[in-house]
């Protein structure tokens, strides 16, 4: 199948998926009991006040009409106005997105490093006690989700040996010179390493909690394919040339064993991003997920819609990119 056709087909299914998400989230949250307008007015407000404000937010129209108005806005980039803060949803959501992106990417990097180290060590000392220990650790890391790892980390590095911060994104008393909300990235660009260290000390535990389960998956799969690769002829050839075992693994086997792991990492990355919701809550990290939970608690319907749609766009976007990359990298699929 030519690449263009695959691309168009995938774009079409992605569009259907996003439309489905929009429909479901819109109608599910309209069933929420409790009038969000009544909640934002002071106790003395009259019926007329409520009616006027409902009209302002379009909440007095029939559901289908509300959906039509909302979707027409979304397509033009207008996600409505938040009921609790009265700011445009798009501004609020884009303001928090950098925090969540930085956390997710830091977690992904940690997962690749930890998982890669586990796989390489396990392959280097395969068949022995070291590999057994790595397998047991991998099994544990995989069995327990990020939420529990986060709590364990809080106890270990927040209470027992308090080396990292257990809440927030940056120490509040610090003066921030940033122009964007990409704090971690911008502190590096501006060479403010004091700020950078403070931000990392805040992000380390939530990122590690997100990384541990993914690291285990990477470790297992990469080790498996490394071990298979180590039995191939070309690796034996490299060995007969007198290369040491470590060099053979790093220089010869790793490149060939990495592709299946890379595809898996792409899919698993969406699960990691989904995990940020509760991890941000746990560490009071000011990202999208934390804002989403507050929005649900405050019944801020436009804000909930906006955040869910944004998450769905990120998820389907990552999946789309991974699929296309796989098609490009794997010649069998391209010419099949």
């Amino acid at each position: 199948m030519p690449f263009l056709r695959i691309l168009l087909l995938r774009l079409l299914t992605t569009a259907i998926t996003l439309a489905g998400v929009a429909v479901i989230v819109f109608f599910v949250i309209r069933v929420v009991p409790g009038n969000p307008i009544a909640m934002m007015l002071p106790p003395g407000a009259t019926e007329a006040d409520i009616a006027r404000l409902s009209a302002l937010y379009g909440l007095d129209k029939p559901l289908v009409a509300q959906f039509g108005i909302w979707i027409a806005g979304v397509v033009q980039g207008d996600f409505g106005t938040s009921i609790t803060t009265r700011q445009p949803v798009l501004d609020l959501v884009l303001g928090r997105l950098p925090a969540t992106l930085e956390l997710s990417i830091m977690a992904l990097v940690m997962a690749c490093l930890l998982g890669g180290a586990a796989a390489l060590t396990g392959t280097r000392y395969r068949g022995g006690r070291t590999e057994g220990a790595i397998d047991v650790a991998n099994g544990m890391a995989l069995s327990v989700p990020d939420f529990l790892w986060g709590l364990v980390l809080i106890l270990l590095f927040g209470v027992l040996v308090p080396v990292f911060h257990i809440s927030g994104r940056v120490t509040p008393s610090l003066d921030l010179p940033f122009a964007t909300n990409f704090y971690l990235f911008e502190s590096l660009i501006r060479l403010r390493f004091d700020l950078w260290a403070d931000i990392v000390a805040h992000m380390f535990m939530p990122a590690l909690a997100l990384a541990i389960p993914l690291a285990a998956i990477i470790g297992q799969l990469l080790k498996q394919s490394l071990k298979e690769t180590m039995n191939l002829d070309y690796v034996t050839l490299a060995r007969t040339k007198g290369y040491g075992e470590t060099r053979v693994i790093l220089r010869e086997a790793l490149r060939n064993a990495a592709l299946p792991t890379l595809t898996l990492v792409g899919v698993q990355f969406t699960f990691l991003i989904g995990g940020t919701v509760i991890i941000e809550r746990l560490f009071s990290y000011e990202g999208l997920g934390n804002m989403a939970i507050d929005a649900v608690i405050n019944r801020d319907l436009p804000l909930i819609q906006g955040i869910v749609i944004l998450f769905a766009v990120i998820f389907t976007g990552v999946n789309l990119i991974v699929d296309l990359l796989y098609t490009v990298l794997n010649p069998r699929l391209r010419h099949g």
Partner: protein
Amino acid sequence: MAEAKPIDGRSLVRRRAGLRLWLSAGWLTLLCAVALFAPWIAPKDPLAQDLFLGRLPPFWVQGSESGYWLGTDSLGRDVLSRIIYGARLALIVALVAGSVTCVIGAMFGLLAGFLRGWVDMVISRLIDIWMAFPPVLFSILLIAVLGPGLWSIIIAIVVIDWTRFARVVRAEAMAQGAMDYVASARVAGRGRLGTMLREILPNVLPTIVVLLTLEMGIAVIVEAILSFVNLSISTDDPTWGGMIAEGRTSVHQAWWVLVFPLVTLFLTVLSFSQLGEGLKDRFDPVLR
């Protein structure tokens, strides 16, 4: 040579798998017993507050009060008794939510994988849409819609997690459906429904059992997360997640309020997961 110890890798793997199967099953059995006999085992009333006995440390720490083995929380409620009663909710959610999710998800998966065609197209598209939702946010949203309570938690878990079963069972059913024995059954005169239930289902069942065990662990976690954000059941009733949420805020003053429910939750989730993995190895003909 008959007495020689088995040293080949495969028997080692089996022995380790056997041990973790027994340890996990042991912990879960203990938990079931504790939950069942909670009123007789719990040393205190899990709801009784006594502000004069707030934040008592566990029994081996200076300043503890006899009878409060694992200490008390800020309201003076006994931590051990609350963990014991919390096991009831955790296990009910695990069993009921896990089973219902399993039945519904497996049914959709079987239908999609065996019938193919437009049924498969609709179900696959639904799975795609579901996968585009962040699951934790989706569950919190559902609880906000349904209102807090045991049934809301169970419904939320079923609504969110049916795709776990549907995806895997669909793939398995497709693979089985292509095999000769299915074709022979059809030739022998079995109807489509009969073939699906009598021929395909029994062959997919081991996978379903493994997934069910894993799902029970996930259900326990989801309940804990929902109690953690204070959306599970009423705030007075003892839940592990609720205890953890309280312990998280007072972790510097009273670590035991966080540590003991966390350890219990950790072991329970680990046990369900290891039980599932152990069963997978048992069912896997290559290892056997």
